[in-house]
Each structure stands twice: as C-alpha cells, then as structure tokens.
C-alpha cells in the first residue's frame, strides 16, 4: 500500500483543521495516518491515486468537511505547444499538458517527486503501463515536440549529469537505465522511445528525463508528459496530475495539440462519465432509508457533480476519480460521507444451524484421543525444506517455482517429515517425547491436491513398532473402524518394521513403522522413533458412511 510522507503544515493551512482533525478525517477517507517526527505519514489505498499529494488530500478533506461541493473544471488555455507522434510500437501512447503558476519550492518539489513515484508504482504498474515526465516549461528548447522511436545512438544529457551520452549508454550505465531500460526497448530494431523538444531529447520514457528541463525550487510552470501502453490510463494519469496541480493558487492548464497518424487530439482530456443511481438502489445496497437531499449532499461532499432527473440521480464524478467504475462505487462514497459508524447495523438472526466439515468434526475427536494417549499437539507449516524431504525419502512433492527462501520452497507430501523435524528439535527433552499433528499435506498431481492427515510420533530410549501400533489401534478401535493390516515398505521405515492399514474396501487409512536409523542419524536424532500417518479424510468418509447406516 502506498505510504506518503510530507510536512503537514500545508495540509493544515489548506484545510483550516488541526492535525488531530485532519487525521480523523483521513481515517474516514480510508487513510491511516501517523505523525513521525515532524512528518505526517499517510497510508493510502491504491484505488485513490488522486490522494497521493497534499493538494489531493486537502481537496478530499475539504469536501468531506462540507467546505466545497462537487468539482469545477479549472481554467484551460491553448498553450500553443504542439506534439507530433510517430508511435513507438513498444510504448505507443502519449498525453501532455502544461500547468502554469505551479511555483515549486523545496518542500513541494519533494512532494511532486513522491506523487510521481507513487503513480508509477501503482496505476503505472512500475512504469510498464504508464510513466510520467515533469519538466520546467521555461527550459524547454522549443514549442514543437516530437514523440518517436529513436535510434540508440542518439544523444541526450540524462538527469543529474552534464555530459552527453548516447541513449544506449544511458540505458546501460545509469541506475535508472538498468532498472527500467528493458521496459520499452525495441530489441529488434535497436530503438527506444524518445521525446524531443526541438532538436533536444528531453526524455526517454519510461526511463529518465533530460537534465536540460530539470525541475528545481523556483520552477514556475511545468510541462508534463505521460506515456504508456494503455491509452485510457495514460490520459487518466495526466488528468490526475493536472487536476492536483491546479489546486495550487493561481495555477491553470495549458492544453497541447497532439498530432498522431490517427488524427489530432488536444490533451489533457479531463474526460468525465455519467452514472445514474436511484434512491432505491442506495437503500437496497446500504440497508438505510436516505432522503434525496442526504444523497445529493453526500455525493457533493465526495466532490461529485449531481443533477436530479425525475427519479434518477445523475452523477458526474470528477475526472481524477479513476476508482468510480459502477454505481456501487458512488454508494460507497455516500456511505463514506455519512460516516460508516453512523450507518448502524442489523444484528444477524440465525435461522438455520451451522455445520462443520466432517473432517473438522472428526479432527476434534482425534485430538481428544491423542491427548488422552499422552501425545502433545504440534502444528507446523505446510511449506517445508526440500532437503528435509530428501533426507526422509519423500521425493514425490510439489515445489514452488519462485520461492523466497529455500527452507520454505516445497509443500509437504506427508506429515512425517514435519514431525521428525520436531523430534530433532527435542532430542534433549524429557523422554518419552510423544507428539501429534493434524494438518494439511499436498500430493503432486494435475492439479495437485491437499488432504487432511494426522501423524503421531514417539521418541524414547527404547521404542518400537508395537508402541505406535498400540496407539493407532487404540484410536481406530474407539472409532469403531474395521481395518486390515499388511506389511509395507517405505525408505523412511526400517525394512520389515512397517505396516499399512486399509479400510475394508481397500482404501489406505494409515502407514506406520519404526524410522530408519540412517535417517535418524542424518537428522542428528540419537533416539529410536516410531511414527504413524493417518488419512483423516479417508477416516472421516469411512466413519460417516458407517455411522449413518445405524
């Protein structure tokens, strides 16, 4: 979740509220905030990129406080700048605008860079989908701009440098180039998107801007370019930026004419759409009877423009509200404006009994019995180390393609390795060590499947097959399960000291035996161990089938 950090003084000034009141209002706007040293840290949900800057937060707070209603389009003039596009195939879309009188000081520069970064990371999908360049308008060499696919040999002065390099060098040698250089590189043609102002490259989106147009404290007007792979998002991001910047005193927009092979377009688009809701829909969704006035007031305070038309409420959300997709999104805004705490609630009425899964019910019985037999319950992760599975000869297993840590890069196909790792940790504990676990295992397959199993383990100075057999038999006999026993072999067990149990219709119910000392040695366990693994689901199926007969 994006976290903003900025000095709160401006927000206090823009809203006329105390810091406490601001934090309280932010909470109602889905944002958790915390004061850290002199800075306010605000956690913002990724559905509201319009809030990634103080100007956006102040706008929303003032709305919720009733200090402004709806949204008015800012002043727009024709800037006289033009942009010719020969769309690079890897990043075909661009939108651009000017905002005059932004008047950047040191604090705002920091916030602006943060705004840009948060937009990149979320809606921009780490610059793949959308990337933003912000330039000092007065430093642009020419009013004529071009966005083209350029040869890697073309040169530019990258940000924070004074020398000229080829695009190739910038991609290879700057940290920005190494991080983002592959996103829009056309490897077949050996080209990269470039934005020219006159004969100067002012940006190679999505990698880096030119130092020629760099922003600094004192910059008055800005030129913004937004490029990307999704036309609508590119335009929306530009809308978000210009509508935030025009919140600054005296700021207004200069539009830019863009010439593409498909035709001419002027950006920013500041497109809005219209949604239609009814009082009934609001009532049906929230479960609360609201007056028309209360609904329109709430929508106004969440900065939507509202008109009433017979039985419908016609809503035009501001262009920066990318999260408004359907009617429900407006209804949430109504609830937010009213305050969730004031909605009240309906206490649930239980009309029909609840029910647990058969295996959940059986697990409770199994836990009681195991405790009664003196086994202590452990619980382990299903993620397990492949090395442990190799040691214990469980080679058939599901492994993770992109694990974070090797120790957790496989799913256990049996509970036995988990319990053996518990035993290894308790070699010095008072004997006998008796533990059990009821938990999920995952069997490979197409697709792999998970199953609820139970395993029991005994470690003692002397312990054998009969000890674990006695425990398992005791449990199965109390459950009144018919079973057959037959010798089995698995390399985890000593040859001739392992058995499997089958239900009378031949399903495998359990395996048990004495653990092979070769494995004990590898796990540095100097005590004999006997272990059993039961399939709780087979047992549950069998148990509930036979119980229902009576």
């Amino acid at each position, binding site marked *: 979740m994006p976290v903003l950090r900025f000095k709160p003084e401006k927000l206090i000034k823009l809203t006329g509220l105390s810091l406490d009141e601001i934090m309280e209002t932010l909470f109602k706007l889905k944002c958790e905030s915390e004061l850290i040293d002199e800075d306010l840290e605000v956690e913002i949900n990724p559905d509201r990129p319009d809030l990634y800057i103080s100007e956006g937060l102040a706008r929303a707070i003032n709305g919720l406080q009733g200090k402004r209603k709806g949204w008015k389009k800012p002043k727009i003039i024709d800037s006289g700048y033009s942009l010719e596009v020969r769309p690079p195939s890897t990043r075909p879309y661009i939108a651009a605008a000017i905002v005059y009188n932004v008047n950047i000081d040191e604090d705002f520069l920091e916030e602006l860079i943060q705004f840009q970064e948060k937009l990149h990371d979320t809606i921009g999908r780490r610059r793949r989908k959308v990337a933003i360049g912000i330039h000092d308008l007065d430093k642009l060499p020419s009013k004529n701009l071009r966005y083209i696919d350029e040869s890697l040999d073309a040169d530019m002065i990258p940000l924070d440098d004074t020398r000229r390099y080829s695009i190739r060098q910038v991609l290879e040698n700057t940290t920005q180039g190494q991080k983002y250089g592959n996103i829009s590189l056309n490897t077949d043609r050996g080209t990269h998107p470039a934005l020219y102002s006159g004969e100067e490259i002012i940006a190679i989106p999505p990698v880096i801007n030119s130092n020629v147009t760099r922003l600094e404290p004192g910059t008055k007007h800005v030129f913004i370019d937004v490029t990307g792979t999704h036309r609508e998002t590119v335009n929306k991001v530009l809308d978000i930026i210009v509508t935030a910047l025009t919140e600054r005193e005296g700021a207004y927009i200069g539009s830019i004419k863009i010439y593409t092979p498909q035709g001419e377009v002027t950006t920013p688009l500041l497109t809005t759409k219209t949604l239609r809701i009814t009082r009934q829909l609001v009532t049906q969704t929230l479960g609360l009877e609201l007056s028309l006035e209360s609904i329109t007031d709430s929508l106004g305070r969440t900065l939507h423009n509202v008109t009433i038309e017979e039985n419908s409420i016609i809503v035009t959300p501001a262009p920066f509200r990318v999260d408004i997709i359907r009617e429900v999104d407006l209804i949430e805004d109504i609830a937010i404006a009213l305050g969730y705490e004031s909605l009240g609630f309906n206490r649930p009425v239980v009309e029909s009994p609840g029910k647990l899964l058969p295996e959940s019910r059986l697990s409770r019985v199994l836990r009681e019995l195991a405790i009664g037999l003196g086994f202590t319950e452990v619980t382990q992760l299903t993620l397990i180390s492949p090395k442990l599975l190799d040691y214990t000869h469980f080679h058939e297993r599901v492994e993770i393609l992109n694990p974070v*840590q090797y120790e957790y890069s496989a799913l256990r196909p049996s509970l036995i390795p988990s319990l053996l790792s518990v035993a290894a940790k308790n070699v010095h504990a008072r004997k006998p060590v008796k533990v059990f676990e009821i938990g999920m295992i995952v069997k490979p397959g197409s697709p792999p499947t998970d199953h609820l199993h139970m395993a029991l383990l005994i470690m003692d100075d002397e312990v054998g097959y009969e000890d674990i057999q006695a425990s398992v038999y005791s449990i199965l006999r109390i459950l009144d399960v018919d079973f057959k026993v037959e010798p089995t072999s698995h390399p985890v067990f000593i040859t001739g000291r392992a058995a499997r149990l089958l239900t009378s219709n031949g399903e495998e119910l359990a395996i048990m035996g004495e653990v092979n000392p070769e494995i004990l040695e590898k796990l540095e366990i100097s005590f004999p161990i006997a272990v059993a693994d039961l399939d709780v689901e087979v047992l549950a199926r069998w148990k509930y089938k036979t119980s229902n007969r009576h």
Partner: protein
Amino acid sequence: MAEQVYRLSKSEYELLKKMQEKGVTEGYIEEAAEKLNVEKTSLASLIMLLSSKGLAKIDEEIESLAHLTDKGLKALEEGLPEEKLVKLLIEHNGSLDINTIRAELGNESGIAIGQAKRKGFITIEGNTVMLSGDPKKILDDLDELRSALRKVREDPSFEPPGELVKRGLIKIKKIKRMRFKLNVSPNKILEKSVVEVAKLSSNLISSGLWRRVALRAYDVSAEPPRIYPARKHFLVEFIEMLRDIMKELGFIEVRGPIVEMELFNFDVLFQAQDHPAREIHDTLWIKEPRRADLTEYKDVVERVAKIHEEGWGYKWNPEIAARLLLRSQTTSVSARVLTQQPEPPIRFFTIGRVYRSDVVDATHLPEFHQLDGIMGWPGYTFRDLIGILEEVARRLGLKLKLKPGYFPFTEPSVEGYVQLPNGKWLELFGAGLFRPEVLEAAGVDYPVGAWGFGVERFAAAVLGITDIRDLYTRDIGKILNFKIKLI
C-alpha cells in the same frame, strides 16, 4: 491427662517387634544387631530416633584396643634390645667394648644402650660398657615388660605399660562403642503405639492396618516434582474457537484447494491480470504443472472474460487465469462457492492456509490461516454485513471500530478494527459487498457480503505472543509451558 501414645515409623515398629520377640532391650549395637538379625547402621539410626522420642538411652563408650607392632612382635620373640645387651654383658663378665656391642647387636645397639643406660642397668666409661647392679633383678624387671607384650597379644583390652606404647612396640586404637538401653519395655511401647506412614498403600487399606497407623503430616509447602500434561496446541485451539463462533452463527464450513488457479484467486474476484498482486514478487507459483485445465469451468471463463474486458479495457488472457499458484487468500474458496451458484440464503465459511512471498521474521510468515465468510440473499445489505462483523467481535468480547477500506472485489468495502484487552486497536476484518462484476462472473443474482481476517496476527495479539514464529514452534517445552489465556 491424655493417654501416652507412642508414634512410631514403620521401621521403628518392626524393630521393637523384634526386640520383644528376642528379648533384646539393651547392649552394644554390634552385638544387638547380630542378635536381632538387622543391619548395624540401620539399628543405630533407629535407636537414635527412639532416643529422640525418649524411648531409649544411649551411652557412648570409648574403648582402647592394643596390638603389637612389628617391632613389638620381634621384641616378644627375641627379647627387648636392652635385654639382649644385658644378656651379652652377663656372658662377658659384666663389661664389653662398645664397638663389639655394636657389631653384635647391629642396628638395635643404639636403642639397647640408650634404654639400658636410662634405666641404670649400665654405666659407660670411655669405650667400655659395664653392667651395674644386680643382674637377676635387672632380668626380672625386663621380664615384666616381655610378659606385658605377651598379654597384649592375647587380650587387646589389656592396658599395657606406657613405655611400650611410647617406644612404638604397642599401638593403641580408640573405638567408640554405642550402648543402648530402652527406657520403656517393648511390650509397653507396642501396646500403646501408633505407626506413622508416609504413603497410604493398598495393603494398609485392604488389611485394615490403616486404623493402627498414623498418616504423617507433610511439609505441604514443599515443591513437588514438575510434571506436564499432554497439551492441545494453542493456535489450533484458537482456530477451533473461531470455528465454533462461525457454526453458532449458522455458517456452513467449506473447503477449497491450496494449490489454486489464478481464475479463482484473482480473475473471478475482478483483479485485473496486470494487477501488482499478480506479479512475481507477490505470487507463489508451482513448478509442475504450471497450468490447470479450464475446460471444466467454461461458463465461468466466458463470463470472467467479458467482465474484465468491459471493466478494465484490455484483452483478457485465459492462459494467465489457468496458472496454478499457492492461494494468496481464502476468498478464492468463496469465489469457488459462488460459481456453484448456491440457493440463497447462503452462509458459508472457510478457515485455511494462504501463502505470501514474505521473508520469515517476527511479524511475517510465508503461510498463515485466513478465515473467510460469505453470506447473502435477495435484499442483503451493507448494514447486514456490518452486523455480522459486530456480532463476531461481540462474541470474541472485543469492541469494533469501522473504517472505509479498499479491496478490488468488494464495494462498499470496510475494515474492522478491534480493541484488544491491552487497549490497542488491531486492524482485523476486511469486508465488503461483492462487486457486481464478481457476482456476474460467478453467475449469482443476489447481493453477497464477504468478510475475513488473518488468524495468526490476531491469535498472537490475543495470546500475548510477540514473535509470530512461536505459533509454529518446534520446541515442545514452549507448548507444554504455554499459559492459557481466555478471551
């Protein structure tokens, strides 16, 4: 005045019995032990215990026992050195050169001359040694010493002349001997005795002997041996408590696969295919097989494709939806349940493991449990959803605070904070009404509320566990010593 009662331990009682039988009531310990056929040491300690109860008197006697040393034995057989000298002088008419004496008596000559001179048997002039006094009288004196040596050999208790001890011919050993005498006769004691026992035994009860014994008082504040009952695991207990709450609220438990298709983990839930949560840093895919077969879900796939393409404006790719991952949320189970289009009203819940790309530390696990509940029917509202959150919090005994939230698949969305007993607010519930896009993808035509929470972080906070890894400890000691907390 209360009648005198003698409280005896079982072994004291048995000893007195034997004393009564054998008529042994006094004497030296060694001798009595032999007569009574008991161990010397145990008899001694029992007599001491009886004496501490005033039933016996103990006298300690110190006895001297003499025995001949090697030198003493030699003197007994060959004569004392000065005796040898006197006899030599008699043979040589009363005088001899000192060098001749040295030659004759060897290394005994020094002692012989020294002793004889001290006792006045001889005088020395220059190199000549002369007998002085009556030889018969001298020999008689010496005979006395010889006979003392002999007597010591025959009877160690004979008290020898000090001279022989000083000269190292006789050694004296002092021995402590314990003599006892019962103050009261065994008959009398036994008649009025009560036996004290430490442990009441089956024998005592079935023989009726318990009536005649006294159950000794214990030091009840003494620390007993430490023992541990077999325990249920505290995390599992916590999960079972949640299951009970859900069942009581009329929810039916369901289950879904851990290895899941992206279709149910993301696509049905209206999470765009380029959503950051679906990137390599946040999603754990499996090696083999990479994809599942979507044929079985043809209808769902068609609806999902349409909704994504309309809603997000991109070309939806079934190949991505078919990829197999470790589910990142149990909402995938709810998504599956909804695609089966159950008849309303519905109340389902699941508790299962979910997986994240997190490095393990005190606050992160790569897998944890989530509880996910869904409920819905025609006319179900957001207030019904808040109601279930309120009710679950109430049954957990916790206060609830609401905050608007964001989840890609619900609208309106809400986060529920609960106040823990320590006063801190914990972000617990994520909830909301499923978006119309999700309901359309599933093919459900009534509103459905969904809510859930991660179990481990909540359990740790409630159970007072600061390191979340302790919930999955391998150390049995931590489970056996876990202090129970009730909420």
